[in-house]
């Protein structure tokens, strides 16, 4: 009996004195009135992160295609790899905006990790193109798609009558995001026009020359 008591006391002693790492902090009590984004708006912005990353991976596939030795268009490859990294920067910008407004305090993992969503993002829809101009056309269609998505966010965040007209977000999306989209689309459309005309009589030669111009940042 005495030995049992002694043993239990010993166990308790060790339990009390064994050091435990204080890894977690106490619950915080921060006022929440300043967080004024409406739920449908937040939801749309969150899904835009995934859209931007999908666009980034689509550009990555284009870059990979034109890097192949059998295709050999380093100018196109450079252009598309750069576009891929830019799309990722857009996704990061959207995340930064949400963070500024006090969002993304929960379900951060769901942004791109909900049940194999990441594997879906990772697989681009298209992976090969017959020539450079068809890839540029697909790029333009991709940009137009992303622009429509941004306009959808603006529509939801601005004019949903029962909720909150989010002036700042709409202004930010209109100025920064839409501005960049429209400039980018104009740039792509111009490139497609130039390339198609270059390829008029001498297809491969036109594409070859265009590729070198792209490589040397002459366009």
């Amino acid at each position: 009996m005495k030995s049992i008591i002694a043993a239990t006391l010993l166990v308790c002693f060790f339990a009390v004195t064994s050091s435990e790492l204080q890894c977690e902090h106490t619950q915080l009590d921060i006022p929440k009135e300043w967080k004024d984004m409406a739920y449908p708006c937040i939801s749309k912005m969150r899904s835009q992160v995934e859209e931007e990353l999908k666009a980034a991976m689509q550009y990555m596939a284009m870059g990979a295609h034109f890097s192949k030795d059998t295709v050999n268009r380093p100018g196109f490859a450079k252009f598309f790899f750069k576009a891929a990294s830019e799309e990722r920067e857009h996704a990061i910008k959207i995340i930064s905006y949400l963070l500024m407004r006090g969002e993304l305090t929960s379900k951060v993992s769901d942004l791109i990790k909900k049940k194999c969503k990441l594997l879906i993002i990772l697989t681009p829809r298209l992976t090969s193109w017959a020539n450079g101009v068809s890839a540029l056309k697909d790029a333009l269609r991709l940009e137009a798609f992303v622009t429509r998505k941004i306009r959808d966010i603006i529509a939801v965040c601005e004019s949903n009558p029962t909720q909150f007209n989010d002036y700042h977000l709409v202004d930010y999306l209109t100025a920064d995001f839409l501005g960049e989209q429209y400039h980018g689309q104009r740039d792509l459309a111009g490139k497609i026009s130039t390339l198609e005309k270059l390829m008029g009589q001498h297809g491969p030669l036109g594409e070859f020359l265009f590729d070198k111009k792209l490589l040397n940042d002459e366009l």
Partner: protein
Amino acid sequence: MKAFFTVLSVLLVGVLASEEYCYDDVVRACKTTNKLSTSPINCTAKYGAIDGVEEYLQKYVNHHFIRSFEYLLMSTHYANYEKNRLGFEKLFRGLSDETWHDAIELIQYITKRGGEMNFQTVSNDIISEEQQDANFELYELQSIAKALDIEKKLAVEAHRIHGEATRKNSKFHDPEISSHLEHEFMPKHRDTIRKLAGYTSDLSTLLNGPDSSLSLYLFDEYLQKQ
């Protein structure tokens, strides 16, 4: 004796001739009088062990993309107003950027060796990881521990690909692939792993002390300057 040498020379010629795929194809292609004939010529950049390790390299690229996005999530978590750890945000954002650019470089490397990229291939381990709803909103020590494990997985995978390219079998001995991995990836991984392991040592002693909250703040401040 003479017979032996003639047989040997014939064999040698035969061996060398069979290695002139590109030249033979070009000769054949140029001989055709039909100008519209476009049969492809077998002149690729493939040599050495690229066929043997292409799939592993493709998987390695996809793993880099996955880890890049995971680090981005961890960075996002630390940047929200409740965590507000700018040092940790910077650490994970740096890891995300690094894995992203490594992936692009690897794609360029695969294509340089005459291969191509396949965005759908990943290892079975990753697939089973992805099938669970993972949590990337971790506390500080846990997040660095997770990063350390991720980096070790990437480092060991590079070792495996290196092994695939340097088997004694002549078909798979490819010092170029192994030296590319040795120079471009292994030192970087080694240094990152050492850095993260050092952070876990520091953090675990700090969190064992009386004021873990202040320690975390000061550690985060230190990370902001790295």
